[in-house]
């Protein structure tokens, strides 16, 4: 077994908040005496050792507490790894630190008889070796942890609770998912449908009542009383277990659908728009129907209209932000300047304008939308001018083609326009080439900033 030390080294939190490995010597010695082959054989499966340890603990054999602690050690590594994965994926953009996640879920102090019930024990007690691997089960429950989900939501990362999934699934959907995806039998489907109905009658009703009273936030686990109302004939523990199982089946389907539709559920990071300064010219391949002569006409027309369109969009955005309760117009303008004229990254900008994470800056500046609004304004202005036709008559395909052409033209690098303004903006990038859009944007921002000062 390659990672045998997982079974006697506990990953725990120090009071300083740093994670630390604590070697449990008594567990190590015991394992070496009791399961020498498991530790020495490199091919010995984890699942087998886990099953043996589980048996030893559940049957209350001698040293049951050591077996339990050993499994808790293993679980602590999996919890740590789960949090690490989250931070690797979202840490930078959403300002997520490993420490704040671990504080919520890594709460096992490693006592042989713990004075409270740490998450690792909770995971172990609900674990069924016949249904999944312990590592998978641990990661699943870690991700399901309400406290962890609250921290994530605070940072802008939402994960639907089991109860939300059950609320939002109707009978037709449930039947389809169970029949076609989980290949359940008619009997299983009938039972699930009646369970869902019982749940929804009570839970949705209560949820809407709470919402009416102004309560908000994540759905809580159904109370004892609610579970009784759902099915008075069965113990509430059983109903809860059935509901969790149903929710996990629906969640499995949900993840399956999401992985099959990356366009909707795994959109590319908006990073590319955060660093528009000095980017490469756009894709000319998409513009086959635009002859060079036609592009010349566009470029000339852009010279006359781009500045006006940008000024118009900026003014509206600033007016809106000024009217808001927490006035952000100044931060918006400064953020735009730092990002578009100075070429700073969103992470660098955040502290300079009173925000804490990259994603907050991205939201405030919303460069993608800004650019899109400018383009759409330009389409209306340019189309009439170039074709002597009203925009009303534009066919859909033509509309898309013009939008693409404009995007490419806005991305084109220019160097003449900025020469003069370089001194004014003291732009770090002023000596380099800059995209047509950025150049025009910086020209527009400069006088506005002076107005603020």
């Amino acid at each position, binding site marked *: 077994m390659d990672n045998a030390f997982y079974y006697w080294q506990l990953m725990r939190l120090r009071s300083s908040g740093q994670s630390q490995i604590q070697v449990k010597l008594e567990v190590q010695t015991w394992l070496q005496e009791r399961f020498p082959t498991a530790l020495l054989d490199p091919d010995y*499966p984890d699942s087998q050792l886990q099953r043996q340890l589980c048996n030893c603990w559940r049957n209350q054999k001698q040293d049951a507490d050591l077996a339990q602690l050993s499994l808790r050690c293993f679980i602590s590594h999996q919890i740590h*790894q789960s949090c690490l*994965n989250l931070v690797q*994926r979202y840490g930078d953009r*959403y300002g997520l630190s490993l420490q704040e996640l671990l504080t919520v879920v890594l709460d096992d102090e490693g006592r042989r008889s713990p004075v409270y019930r740490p998450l690792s024990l909770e995971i172990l007690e609900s674990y069924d070796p016949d249904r999944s*691997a312990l590592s*998978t089960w641990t*990661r699943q429950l870690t991700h399901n942890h309400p406290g962890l989900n609250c921290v994530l939501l605070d940072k802008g*990362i*939402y*994960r*639907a609770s089991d109860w*939300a999934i059950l*609320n*939002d*699934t*109707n*009978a*037709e959907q449930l039947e*389809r*998912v169970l029949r076609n995806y989980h*290949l*359940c*039998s*008619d*009997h299983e489907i009938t039972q699930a449908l009646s369970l869902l109905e019982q749940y*929804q009658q009570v839970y949705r009703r209560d949820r*809407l009542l709470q*919402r009416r009273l102004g309560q*908000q*936030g994540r*759905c809580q686990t159904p109370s004892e009383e609610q579970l009784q109302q759902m099915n008075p004939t069965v113990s509430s523990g059983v109903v809860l277990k059935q509901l969790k199982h149903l929710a996990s089946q*629906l969640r499995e*389907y*949900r993840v*399956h*659908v*999401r*992985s*099959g*539709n990356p366009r*909707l559920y*795994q*959109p590319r990071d908006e990073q590319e728009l955060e660093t528009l300064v000095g980017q490469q010219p756009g894709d000319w391949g998409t513009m086959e129907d635009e002859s060079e002569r036609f592009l010349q006409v566009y470029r000339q027309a852009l010279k006359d209209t781009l500045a006006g369109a940008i000024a118009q*969009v*900026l003014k*509206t955005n600033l007016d809106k932000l000024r009217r808001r309760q927490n006035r952000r117009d100044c931060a918006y303008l400064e953020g735009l300047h730092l990002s578009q004229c100075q070429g700073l990254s969103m992470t660098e900008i955040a502290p300079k304008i009173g925000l804490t994470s990259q*994603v907050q800056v*991205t939201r405030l500046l*919303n460069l993608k*939308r800004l650019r899109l*609004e400018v383009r*759409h*304004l330009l389409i*209306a202005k340019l189309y009439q001018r170039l074709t002597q036709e009203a925009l009303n*008559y*534009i*066919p*859909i395909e033509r*509309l898309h083609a013009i939008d693409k052409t404009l995007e490419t033209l806005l991305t084109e690098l220019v160097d003449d326009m900025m020469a003069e303004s370089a001194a004014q903006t003291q732009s770090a990038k002023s000596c380099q080439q800059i995209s047509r859009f950025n150049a025009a944007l910086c020209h527009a921002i400069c006088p506005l900033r002076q107005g603020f000062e």
Partner: protein
Amino acid sequence: MTYSSQCQLLDLDPDQGTTVHLTTGAVNWAVEVCQEHIDTDHQWFCFLRAMAIRGLQQWLDQGAEALPLDYSRETPPNPGVNCQVNGFRLCLVVQGSLSDGLISIPRYTLKDPLNFAHLYVLAEVQEEADQVKILAGLRRDRLVSLKESGNLALSRKGHYHVPLEDWDLSPEDLLLYLHCLNPEKLETGHSENSVPARCLCPQPTLNVRDWLRDQLDTVAQRFHWTLLPPLALSHQLMSVQTPAEELETLLRDLEQQGMTIPETARGAYQELHHQGLPGRLYALTWKVFDSHYSPEWSLFLCLGPRPGESLAPGTELIVQDETSVLVRQGLNEDSGEAYLYTQVIGSFNEQFTVSIISSEGTPLTLPPFTFHT
């Protein structure tokens, strides 16, 4: 990163440019406007739809160019055409936290000559977080052509089920249309009545009786089945086995465990990579002569790895008849088995549907096996 941690990341919804945080006022309105529904299902989805409407409104308002959303403040939003922008009639559809792969659209939104929808907008409502995310859109003309090509199923309740992957407009495309397009450009395609909707049309089936006549039918060919020679259980064991030899070796093992397959049986196999899954599937069929009842046929299935590979634990083989699951077998990590096999017997008018689920959870259902004379 392991598959399971990938899955867990997919379960998360990070805040994006298309995510809208609803104001308290918006949520309060949504709760109140759905109160008149008594039925819990209608009430709940009405609530979500009302949240979606306010989410769409806030999203449109984020832009510099005004796009005022017109909807009824007093009446609960219905599942059909429920709001308007710039002359576009919109059907705003809710995706709840299930993330369903099929989206239900009321038929009249396509058919009604006076009140059809120009655009369909799909919004994911995250009720717990008071958030709405604009996911995608669908144009009327595209929906009409989907329908005309027979690719839309009509449900019992008179709804079209549109697969998620057909929602091909990005939120940016939606804004482009609302800003710059004349809605009349989307009013083509009134031919809704000319082509009947496909109501879950029957699947092609594969007739294994042809195998006994040394033939493969067109469905079998289309699905990459290869016919095996008649069984000969006396082949020498060789290091490189043909599929026929592999099967025969396996049958010899099974015979020792008491399972007999008559010499009259004929089989075929297919490499599942044609369908995007690992492994190789054998099927053997024969007529059951010793039946005391009506004549019966038997289907033996064996799912194994391709040469030099092994099937991952978690792989499942499932056989269903028209009403229920007959067999569901999974490859267990601890068992050490390399193959999954099973046998089913049915009368001549029965058919069997075989599904395979890969260890990663990808399901594959093959055209049903039949035994017709």
